[in-house]
């Protein structure tokens, strides 16, 4: 259920189990409005599962997760309305066009006057010329960029980007930076899951490091930058 909160993302004691596999074994996170946090960690650290819980796709086994003040377990639809999510894999309906994806998102969220923003986003991500082409033939980078556009369309108060830079060219990376900056400027909380530490520290104020499904530390991006940051990151993963 919704509740009075000033936190964009609030995760406490999160545990997610798939059969006998524990994907997340204890994650606590707090992202304030206007803050961008990076989620770093090795493969299988639980980053994407945590993101999927926050996006309302995977129900938590234990613990609580609030986005925009809504409990993702009990108020799933309300939580989905305030979240913009870029999934880590694919995320596109193969035989629909980008414009049809945007129309579906706009219709289900009852957006008004969204077309000009959609067109601007497509242009910013260099997808304007393929807006009416089916996505099955898209390259990996194009799919990633469109997923970020879809996440940002409705100006969500919680922006979840899972591996948004993976396989994306510099133009796409820059456009994603702009989307994150815009979201922060309007007071949205942003969570970026990525393997690319250098990019993460450029755009996020804080970094949470996950290992084996558990949060190891949350530290300022400044401490994770450069060579010293790389050494600190390796130490946290060891």
């Amino acid at each position: 259920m919704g509740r009075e909160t000033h936190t964009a993302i609030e995760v406490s004691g999160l545990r997610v189990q798939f059969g006998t596999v524990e994907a997340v074994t204890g994650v606590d996170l707090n992202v304030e409005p206007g803050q961008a946090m990076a989620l770093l960690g090795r493969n299988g650290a639980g980053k994407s599962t945590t993101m999927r819980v926050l996006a309302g796709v995977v129900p938590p086994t234990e613990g609580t997760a609030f986005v925009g003040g809504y409990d993702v377990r009990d108020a799933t639809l309300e939580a989905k309305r305030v979240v913009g999510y870029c999934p880590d894999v694919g995320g596109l309906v193969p035989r629909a066009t980008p414009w049809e994806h945007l129309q579906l998102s706009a219709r289900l969220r009852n957006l008004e006057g969204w077309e000009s923003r959609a067109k601007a986003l497509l242009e910013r991500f260099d997808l304007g010329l393929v807006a009416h082409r089916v996505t099955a033939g898209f390259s990996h980078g194009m799919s990633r960029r469109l997923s970020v556009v879809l996440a940002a369309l409705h100006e969500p108060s919680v922006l979840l980007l899972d591996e948004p830079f993976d396989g994306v060219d510099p133009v796409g990376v820059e456009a994603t930076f702009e989307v994150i900056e815009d979201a922060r400027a309007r007071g949205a909380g942003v969570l970026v899951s990525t393997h690319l530490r250098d990019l993460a520290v450029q755009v996020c104020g804080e970094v949470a490091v996950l290992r084996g499904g558990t949060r190891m530390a949350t530290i300022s991006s400044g401490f994770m930058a450069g060579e010293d940051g790389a050494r600190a990151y390796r130490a946290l993963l060891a």
Partner: protein
Amino acid sequence: MSDVGRAVADVRHLLWFRAATLRRPRAVVVALAVFGVVTVLSATVPAWVTVDVDTISGAARALPAALGAVVAISVASAVAGGGGRELLARDPASIHPISPVTDHLGALVLAPLNTGWLLQTWLLLGFTALVAGPSRLFGAQVLTVSWVLAATVLGQAVAWGVEWVRRGPRGVRVVRLAIAVVIAVLAAVGSTDARQVLVAGPARVTAAAIEDGNVTTVALVALTLLLAATVLVVVGAQLATLAATRTPRDEGRQESRTHAARPLPGSGLAMMSRIDRASVWRSVPLRRGTLLLAFAPGLVALAGALPWSTLILFPGLVASGCVLLFGVNLWCLDGRGLLWRETLPVAPRTVLVVRARVLAEVLLLAGLLTIALGAVRAGMPTPAEALAVVLALLVVVGQAVSAGLRWSAKSPYAVDLRSARATPAPPLAMVGYSLRLALATTFTGLFFATLAAVDRTGPMVVVAVVLLAVSAWRMVRAARRWSDPERRAAVVAVVAA
């Protein structure tokens, strides 16, 4: 190692991989054992069944047509499947050095995992046993098995040839035209006394050898068939290699096609329906399969001037075939996009209702097309027959949709329906689904046909209402299960993997 030797070894490796990655190996062993037992029983039991001479004569007369039907099914399945089944789907296979010859041999190995092929082969083995009797059974079945082998290999070779043409310049148009001409010729010949020509030649010679039972004739015909099969395997391998040098044209065209923006519909439901319909009609295997299943039985009915009493069975045939195109794994329509769609703010039940509605539309459309074609030469139906056809269509669509919803949630698969060779589930699972659907829908059709024959419209309506209520109840139960976030998350995890 020679190319062929390497291809055979690769097929062995791929089969091992498929076996090692089975989700339910015990169920597969049981299914294969059941197929084996049914094959042995159908090939032997009729030989010892006491029947009158007329029945045996009737089976002997039907033998050439039954032999021809195996060829027709083998060719049609392989051509419609764009070269037949794959031992490993295209995307995971792309990183391995799998040659076109391996692909060809793999498709041959998987060809029997097709309900149409299985049923027709069992029927043929049964006819052979009935005609030959216990004393000449062995030789006759050797001949029949040789025929089935040659027919299957022929189907595969033809499919690669068609695929090679289809992938060439103006290939899609050429193949469509050729298929239309073949269907028109078959329909024209089939509607006249010249239909005997269709089963003349090799089929008649083989049927005569089965009936005659002379050891020398049987040996000679069997050796000829096996020799033909061997030659066709080589020809098929050559054609597969040729086809592999060309890019699948219609798939490439679909993936680069643009669709002009349409106005935003008035509701989320309408927008979801639009996307789901696009996912069906923009997919090569789904569009091709639906049209084939809609037109092929209808043209058979048209050519044979089948009466309404037979047409009542057709909606079941078409619905059970069409639901196999994507209905048994409904969520695979979204592919990896299911993960994104699952984050949209819409009630799960609404998503399920839209998906079920789109499936029902496809089934109804295909069924109506078939009936419309069949109606051209079927004459005026009696009120009972007209009612039976309508009710049979509605009931089998309900049965197929409710089965699809249940199976899609219970056994989802990550499938990319881009390729014409793609199926929504592994081959053996498809056979299981197909047999269960065929059983339910055929019984339904037979039931309505029987009631129509005795002009009992009242019971017909009562039974239809009961069967529709059962399907509706199953759909409601499926919707309730789909509302469970844990079940849904499990399906999303598999489909979007």
